[in-house]
């Protein structure tokens, strides 16, 4: 599937939480990440996502920003203010790259951001690039 340069066990046995209110979007992310060995947990809003993160302590979180109940901004605020969870890396997911999104995301506490659409060709490469920039994860990536 897709890019042959990236090993299929890149994320082998990693617990990853993806939060998105769009079921289809969530499914695409889930399919692709599972292709690379991740144990995937999904949530459809920030509050639910926070509960799951507390339970599983994932390696990293990918969260959409615009969601009902608790959006991505509320989620990251809660995450960063929780002493048990505040070190967990988080990547924002935006519907469309907007001017200032990156600054806003980083300012709010995300490590970086990814923009939709998520496709097998680009998603995992972009994700890998972002993960390489996070020292705590880069060392344990199966490359």
């Amino acid at each position, binding site marked *: 599937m897709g890019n042959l340069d990236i090993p299929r066990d890149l994320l082998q046995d990693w617990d990853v939480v993806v939060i998105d209110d769009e079921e289809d979007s969530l499914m*695409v992310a889930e399919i692709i990440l599972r292709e690379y060995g991740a144990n995937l947990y999904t949530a459809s809003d920030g509050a639910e996502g926070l509960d799951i993160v507390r339970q599983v302590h994932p390696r990293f979180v990918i969260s959409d920003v615009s969601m009902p109940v608790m959006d991505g901004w509320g989620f990251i605020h809660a995450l960063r203010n929780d002493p048990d969870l505040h070190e967990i890396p988080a990547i924002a997911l935006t519907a469309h790259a907007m001017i200032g999104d990156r600054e806003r995301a980083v300012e709010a506490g995300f490590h970086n951001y990814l923009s939709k659409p998520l496709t097998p060709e680009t998603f995992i490469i972009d994700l890998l690039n972002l993960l390489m920039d996070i020292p705590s994860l880069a060392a344990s990536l199966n490359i």
Partner: protein
Amino acid sequence: MSANAPVAVLPNTYAPRIRRRILLLFGVFLVVLLAVMVVMVLSLLSTNEAEQWQGRQSEASSSSIFRVESFITDARERLISLAEFSDVAQHPDSLIETIRNNPQFLELLQLDGQGEILDSQFQDAPLLANQVARPQANWFARSLGQEEGQIYLSPIQLSVDNQPYIVMSAPAQMGGVIGARISLTVFSEVISQLTFGETGQAYVVSSDGFVLAHTDPQVVADNTNITGRPEFERALFRPIDTSVDQSLEESPTEAYDNFRGVPVVGTSERIPGLDWVIFTEVDQAEVFKATTTALTTLIIVMIIVFLVTMLVSSEGQRRLLFKPLADLRANVDKVSQGNSEGLYQATSRDEIGEVIQSFNDMVLIVNQRAIERDRLIRDLQAAKRLAEENSRLKSEFLSTMSHELRTPMNAIEGFVGIILSRMGGTDYNDKTSTYLQRVRANSQRLLALINDFLDLSRVESGRLDLASQPFDPVKLAQRWRSELGILAENKHIGFDLTVDPNLPKSLIGDEEAISKVIINLIGNAIKFTEKGKVTLKLEAAGNDWNIVVTDTGIGIPPHAREFVFEEFRQVDQTSKRKYGGTGLGLAIVQKYTRSMGGQVTLKSELGQGSEFTVTLPIVTVQQMKKAKEA
């Protein structure tokens, strides 16, 4: 008119100023007029008075001459009468009787042919009788043997006590001579009775300059001589008037300082047959007394007339001109301060009244217009708010729509991608794979259109928050060179990047916005270029820096250069079908550039290529710091 508008209120001084000027002008005119009147009246008065005085003086003069002539004639007749009755034997008392009855005769003598005294009578002293060389004396020699009635008159002589006298002689009928010494003191008394006016005086002067008789006897007693005085010289050399009736003929009146130094108006006349001159003089002060009085009276009257006239005209001006003007001024001030209630109404139907009426009418009309205008402004403001609200709603709608459209598109894109990647290992010519590729291409195009829409709507709604972050323009250009390079490679055309070394290494701005500009320009250039290359050039240009994108593509015809920046406009519909694209790229470039305070220029030659230049202001970190400090 807004009550808050600053109103410059002039100091209330203009009316008095113009009023003063009018009064001054009027006053000067009045003074000149009055002065001319005074001069005319005085000139008439003084001429009239001078004529009057001249008449009185001439009268006095003539009267004096008459008296002197009478005096001399009387003396002469008495002497001739004595000469007739010169027989001493028959009239022994004739001399003594004459002396007694005529005080002017100081001494009378009857001499025989040899000069011996036949009879001698005197009042004061026997001056003639005691003369030693009597027979040689003029009066005896001149009269002896002369015809009957011939009179000799001696020059004036003075007695030891300075009393003037003359000697008169006549041939006696019986032979010999009758001589008389005649006192001119009596003659002075005659003159002294001659008075006119308060200062009028007369005096008689002999041809050798001695004052014989004067209204003031002291002058004669002082033995005054006026030889050399101009009025005397003039009188001496004036020819004697020989006309029959001298009283009708007036001698010229002159104004001069007389021998006593008093300014007088005088006339002089010569007494016929005597070489004597009679002067009549009046002090100038008296002559012009009436004129002076008149002058004083006139000046006082004129000042009163002047003051009254000025007062009346001033008050008239105030009522006619300045009070209405002040009213108008007050109206203007009131209206200036936004109060158009209680304006002064015109009190007269003259020009100023009309102006006040017109002004008040105008205020009404202006107020109506202001109300109308305020209503229009309110309407316009409401319309503007509505338009802004509509625009906001439109942007919001577009944004929401784009989001709602993009969500399913993202899902389609994701799933098609997953299916295609799973089919990756099978036969690539499989028709299903081809069809899926077409589905993906179309969905990507739709997504691009939606994204462009969102970009545009965001700039137009003004919700674009431009960042002010430092960035490296060279790194930015290199990033897009590598990201977009694949597009050029696919079309087998070159993609060059050149950077001006003078460009600052760090600029302040919004990297994402600049990226959008670069992406759209490069994408556009590659799209319309079939062979050759596209060039991205960054250059410094004074206070600005330029992003220049050049291609060797089809170029843009001149008529299209105006509208290529408009939304959904390409050179023509065939090019749209042929080259694809949303038609929003250049519109996005222009709107983003303008929102960053820059501008886009276009140079193009049909068939040769195009050059787009985006000029942006250079803002460096140092400038930002300075601006913050300031």
